[in-house]
């Protein structure tokens, strides 16, 4: 009995939830589905800081001009706790209750894949800045992303290492529970062994997400005497791994991927990471034009160099805004506007972002160049080479 009582009160509550205020005319609402607590709070924080800066820019200039009319931006940040189920309810809340025109995030694939389903089912544009899992956008016309996929980044690392370190053998240490890290590691291995023969990846070791000690894996790797170590890991773990590799007597090169690209890397890793290379979206040192301006302003505003999440969120949000502008005009009818935005987004042929210029393929994945950067002795990320698809 009580159960039905509770259910009926809930239903009543649900009714009141459904009665949301009508969309005010001159505001564009964009939702952010980001992890502010849970495993990766820094990702959510970077996203939010970057978006806030963009919002201030545009609102400071009087708003975004769409079809001859200025609209103020309203960004709604929702915490998805780095959980899949929470990302789904967050997405539904943003789409339905907050009536956002488009959604940015979630960032890690664990949340982006189910949230992408929700966005696609409810016909709302979603763009994930950071997710690299092909399933996020696969067969989902409403879902886009700003980061390049692993199948592109893996071979970049292989080719670069073969050229720069004249490497014939490699070792890989990756995060088993992190699909980004695991996917990249596997693609790297397949590509490397395809080029240098079976067994050229001498050690293929894994660890868990929250691990802090890697000495056993590193001992195995160092005993295998590879030409270099490939480390597709998040920067916080990179700092620990590099330090421990050093303590175990490793002095060869280490190469990483775009998850290294954070200002915190140098703070956490110190001198030990200097001289290493990683593939990423843009090079902070020697950046020109809009990229440099973004980095300088972000650094001045928040006292830290923007990481890859911040840069990708900036781009993702700008892509959405451009899509809105391409839509021509906003009618105030949600479903119509959302569709116009999607068509606007797909029609973008070339977008000059701070992480490089890009266009979208039919799956909503960006086609853009990767760069390999070197960590200089000053701790800056210096451009070394650029690889385009």
């Amino acid at each position: 009995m009580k159960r039905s009582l509770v259910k009926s009160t809930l239903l009543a509550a649900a009714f009141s939830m459904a009665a949301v205020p009508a969309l005010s005319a001159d505001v564009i609402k964009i939702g952010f589905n980001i992890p502010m607590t849970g495993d990766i709070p820094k990702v959510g924080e970077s996203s939010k800081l970057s978006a806030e800066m963009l919002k201030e820019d545009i609102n400071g200039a009087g708003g975004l001009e769409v079809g001859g009319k200025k609209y103020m931006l309203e960004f709604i940040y929702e915490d998805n706790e780095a959980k899949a189920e929470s990302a789904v309810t967050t997405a539904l809340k943003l789409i339905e209750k907050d009536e956002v025109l488009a959604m940015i995030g979630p960032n890690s694939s664990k949340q982006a894949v189910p949230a992408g389903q929700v966005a696609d089912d409810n016909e709302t544009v979603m763009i994930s800045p950071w997710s690299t899992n092909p399933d996020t956008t696969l067969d989902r016309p409403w879902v886009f992303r700003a980061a390049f996929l692993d199948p592109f980044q893996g071979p970049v690392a292989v080719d670069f290492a073969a050229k720069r370190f004249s490497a014939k053998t490699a070792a890989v240490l990756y995060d088993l529970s992190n699909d980004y890290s695991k996917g990249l590691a596997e693609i790297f291995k397949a590509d490397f062994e395809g080029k240098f023969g079976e067994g050229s990846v001498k050690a293929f070791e894994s660890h868990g997400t929250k691990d802090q000690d890697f000495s056993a894996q590193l001992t195995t790797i160092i005993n295998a005497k590879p030409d270099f170590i490939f480390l597709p890991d998040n920067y916080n773990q990179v700092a620990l791994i590099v330090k421990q590799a050093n303590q175990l007597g490793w002095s060869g090169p280490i190469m990483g991927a775009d998850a290294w690209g954070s200002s915190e890397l140098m703070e956490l890793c110190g001198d030990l990471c200097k001289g290493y290379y990683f593939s990423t979206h843009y090079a902070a040192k020697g950046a020109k034009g809009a990229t440099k301006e973004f980095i300088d302003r972000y650094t001045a505003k928040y006292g830290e160099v923007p990481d890859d999440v911040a840069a990708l969120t900036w781009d993702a949000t700008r892509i959405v805004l451009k899509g809105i502008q391409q839509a021509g005009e906003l009618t105030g009818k949600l479903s119509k506007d959302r569709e116009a935005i999607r068509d606007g987004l797909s029609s973008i042929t070339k977008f000059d972002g701070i992480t490089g210029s890009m266009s979208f393929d039919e799956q909503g994945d960006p086609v853009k160049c990767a760069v390999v950067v070197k960590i200089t002795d000053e701790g800056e990320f210096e451009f070394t080479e650029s690889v385009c698809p």
Partner: protein
Amino acid sequence: MKRYNVQIILAVALAILAYLAQEEIIGKYALSVLMFMGINVILSTSLNLVNGYMGEFSCGHAGFMAVGAYVSSVLGVMLFAKDKVFGPALLDPSLSIWVFPLIVIIGGIAAALAGLLVAIPSFKTRGDYLAIITIAANYIVISVVENIDTIGGARGFMGMKSVVKAMGKTIDMPWMPIWVFIFTILSVWIIRRFISSTFGKGVPAINQDEIAAEIMSVNTNKMKMVAFMLSSGLAGVAGALFAYILGYVNPGSFTILKSTEVLVMVYLGGMGSLSGSVLSAILFTLLLEALRPLQIIKWVVVPFLLILLMQFRPEGIMGNRELPDFFPRLKRFYAFKD
């Protein structure tokens, strides 16, 4: 007539829920909160069977949930969807309506079998030592899933949405809320029947005094096995529903953190109180949703509120009593115990 009151009320509630969901009077957001609430009810009541009634301290509930989620997902996708690994659909999609409940139950059975991993050591090992075995079981399940690449490993497994869509295409109804509702009611009912049956009285007997229970001819080993398997089986059912609601499963959703969330719900409601577990699962889900605007502070405020609650009601919301103990008139409808 009177004895069918509850059934009638529930059937009407289900019909109303289905109608509201179908006509989209109640939004998808509210609906998804309701569905997760139902899943939390299954999880907390089933864990209460072991932690409350039997008095053990199991902290690996999410592991069994994972087993149910994965088994039912793989089965459903194999039967009704085209998949890279499992090939084309084996059965006609229009059959999905009839087979879906079976798939969920098979997920539950698989989870119950995984429950043996804990049930068998529990014959000898008890208390906090058993708690570690449950944690280990949780870790083992996650690790096994991460190592099987055919079901995606850490990348997760998807394709369940097409099964749900196939059901909707055959008969246009909001199937997921309906199934969650039915299975929630079913699992509360099963636990209630089990606990109040003569056979099931052995479970609280073990809690009171295991040796005395043994002397009174309760087969304690069998009792423990049944309780653990029932509990983990229902967790598997919850996991299966969870997987179909999300349309995507990932080992990261079933870690020890999820287990502790369920633990909190059980003790918040009160050990050995079925209606307490139901109530606390509902309250906990609502609280987490209602406090969303607090963002980071939410996870300071929620535990703080719970600690305060513990200070004022050190035995949980209900203690070991049931709702009708507080509101005797409810007994006319449902007693929660005999």
